[in-house]
């Protein structure tokens, strides 16, 4: 009925965050599929990287994503007790907490790194998380933790340097 819109002032140039999203194959990836088949609309900021289980997510993936310029990292797994591999999501939770502590120490705002349990049926929840996270990070502004690509370990694909540069540029 009555909605109050806050004064925002002149809109600055719209910053669109990029979010690296690691989704497990059995729950959250399928939730994203369901959101698609249900034609739900959400913020286009996340880029989904599929893994079989949230337990596969190495903290290095998270650090690497921030180092490569991600403004946020989202991990999506099955609800506790629902893991396709029995308990991979508990491992993910443990690692998430550790990673979070390190990120906190590095000054990464808590909104930039999230772990969410989203089952294959919870497309609406996926949509909400996507929207919420995008809005929160938009409000925070860009993250600036990136370091030049080549200095980070594990990214050397063994290609010749020119090809690599071409990709980066």
């Amino acid at each position, binding site marked *: 009925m009555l909605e109050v819109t806050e004064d925002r002032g002149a809109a600055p140039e719209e910053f*669109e965050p*990029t979010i*690296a999203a690691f989704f497990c194959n059995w*729950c959250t990836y*399928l939730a*994203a*599929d369901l*959101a*698609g*088949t249900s*034609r*739900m*609309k*959400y913020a*286009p900021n996340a*880029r*989904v*990287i599929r*893994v*079989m*289980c949230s*337990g*596969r*997510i*190495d903290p*290095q*993936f998270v650090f*690497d*994503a921030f180092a*490569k*310029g*991600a*403004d946020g990292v989202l991990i999506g797994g099955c609800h506790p*007790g*629902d893991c*396709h*591999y*029995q*308990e*991979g999501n508990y*491992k993910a939770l443990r*690692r998430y907490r550790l990673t979070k502590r390190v990120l906190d120490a590095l000054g990464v705002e808590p909104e930039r790194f999230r772990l969410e349990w989203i*089952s*294959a*049926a919870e497309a*609406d929840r996926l*949509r909400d998380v996507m929207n919420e996270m995008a809005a929160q990070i938009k409000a925070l502004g860009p993250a600036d933790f*990136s370091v030049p*690509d080549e200095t980070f370990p*594990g*990214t*050397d*694909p*063994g*290609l010749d340097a020119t*090809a*690599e540069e*071409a*990709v*980066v540029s």
Partner: protein
Amino acid sequence: MSELSAGNGTPRVGVYVCHCGTNISATIDVVAAQQAAETLPGVVISREYKYMCSDPGQEIIKKDIHDLDLNRVVVASCSPCLHEETFRKAVADGGLNPYYFQMVNIREHAAWVHKDMAAATAKANDLIRAAVRRVRLHQPLEARRVPVDPNVMVVGGGIAGIHAALTMADAGKHVYLVEREPSIGGHMAMFDKTFPTLDCAACILTPKMTRVRAHPNIETMTMSEVTAVDGFVGNYTVTVRHNPRFIIEDACVGCLECIDACVFRNGKTQDEFNLGLSKRKPIYIPFPQAVPQVVLIDPAGCIEFRTGKCKKTCVEVCAERNAIDFQQEATTEDITVGAVIVATGFETFDATRLPRYGYGNLDGVYTALEVERLVNASGPTDGEIVLRNGRKPEAIGVIHCIGSRDKNTNEYCSRVCCMYSLKLSHLLKEKTDAEIYEFYIDMRTAGKGFEEFYNRVAEEGIHFIRGKVADVYPEAGNPDKLVLQAEDTLAGMVRQIPVDMVVLATGLEPRQDAEDVRRTFNITCSGGGFFMERHPKLAPVSTFTDGVFLAGACQGPKDIPDTVAQAGAAAAEALALIDAGFIELEPNTAFVVEENCSGCKTCVGLCPFNSISYADGKAQINEVLCKGCGTCVAACPSGAIRQNLFDDDEIFEEIAGVLTNA
């Protein structure tokens, strides 16, 4: 790392961006995406095409592999759940290892969920770039083959489970049919007639029930529940608990003399089968046609159980057959099967959740299932329509959509209520000649012979009022009469109609314990809580867990014809799986690079499948047991464990790929 050149030379990638008709191209500039992909390192050819999954689409890939000497392929189209297999096969047909392929989901994850074309296209570009970077590191792999156990289990002995079990047993498979209740038959056994043909439910169901019992290939386990499921497709170990019925099943011949002999002269306990409209004794048979024809004892009502001082007249009359065993205890059993069909059925909506209709409070208000029992010749009133107050109804109101089509309860339409309401109106009219008022929102009679049945009932003089009853209250000074108040939306006025009997057409809901069942079988639930099929159109009886199939109303509300059809489909899917003799598994197993392993044993305890062992100072992974979750890979402190298809390097490339523009 130099695997790239291992036998396959410099990566030569082909990228194919699909329009999917306009499904993708309406939101993503497919040509721009195709052009962006052209510039990526290693990409030899980039094309866009209307339908990549079509035969001509696949032909393009095969031809390019041949003509352009491609050794990697990326297809940007729909979800890999849909077409990964299709394209892997095309790649293999083109002469490459099928795992030199990576799929990009730009339909479900981009085109369908975004509105802004520029943003969606940018996202598609990032995802394609990531796939190109990743696919260059792909390794040739081979799918793993494992043998399939030829036995099957059906969980739930309603009409869905019965039909699935019989189909598979007739095909020569050994079937374990597990039912929680003391008899198979499910809800259908409680129905009087079935719409629209008005066949008597018992007449068509009972022969099937007896056939289950007699079938040499079916092992029926009543009073039994699945408590745990272990293993994987083709090789499940299912733990079944058999609850005690306090009767030795093989010794009981179903003479029912013990029931007559029971010290209770009359029943004291509400009869579950008649929904509390009649009483039963503590030793009883659920209903006359129960299968197995074996009695059971309800310890809550039995004097022997409560005091240990009963005369035990039941034991006396059973005499030398000696079938009664007060000491019986629950037992558990592990059963190995190759596939499982879950057919656990539904529950009817609990009408007390909507106090406005007075169920449980006003005597004249009944649920439809109760009325099924009332009109049934072997029901609590022998088929006479006698109300709780002893009177015969002269006016009856039937209210549709109780617990359906209402966001405060269940948003979905329960599909069967319109038809069963018509059926009950017809039966009640026939038996009482009462004035019958059906209050409906929309009459949904889509089914073979359904509309014809609606017409027939309308011609019988039933009043159809389009509007949901808002209030049911007893008439002042005449509490036997219940006033139904509703807007007659067609007439545009509020009507108040006094009736003697109200029938609530309660909707169908998932079982209370559907959540536990879901966890046990590692399957998923849809929004409303029913079990979720793998694909609503193309894999309607499969689940996301291979080897677990769905049949009947546990997947969603459905009528008997649809249930039976679905049960047949589930049986066919299970048979196809079993008869193949083996299954192919994704080659996404983990392996240890021995020279890097420091022998710290971190991984050993992590594996939920005990596939990691430790010998000679090194960890070893048993590839047969590994399911490919990758938890050990992430945990290995020295990076010595790697995973096929999801190797660290591949994921790092993907991360770099999606973030290049960030």
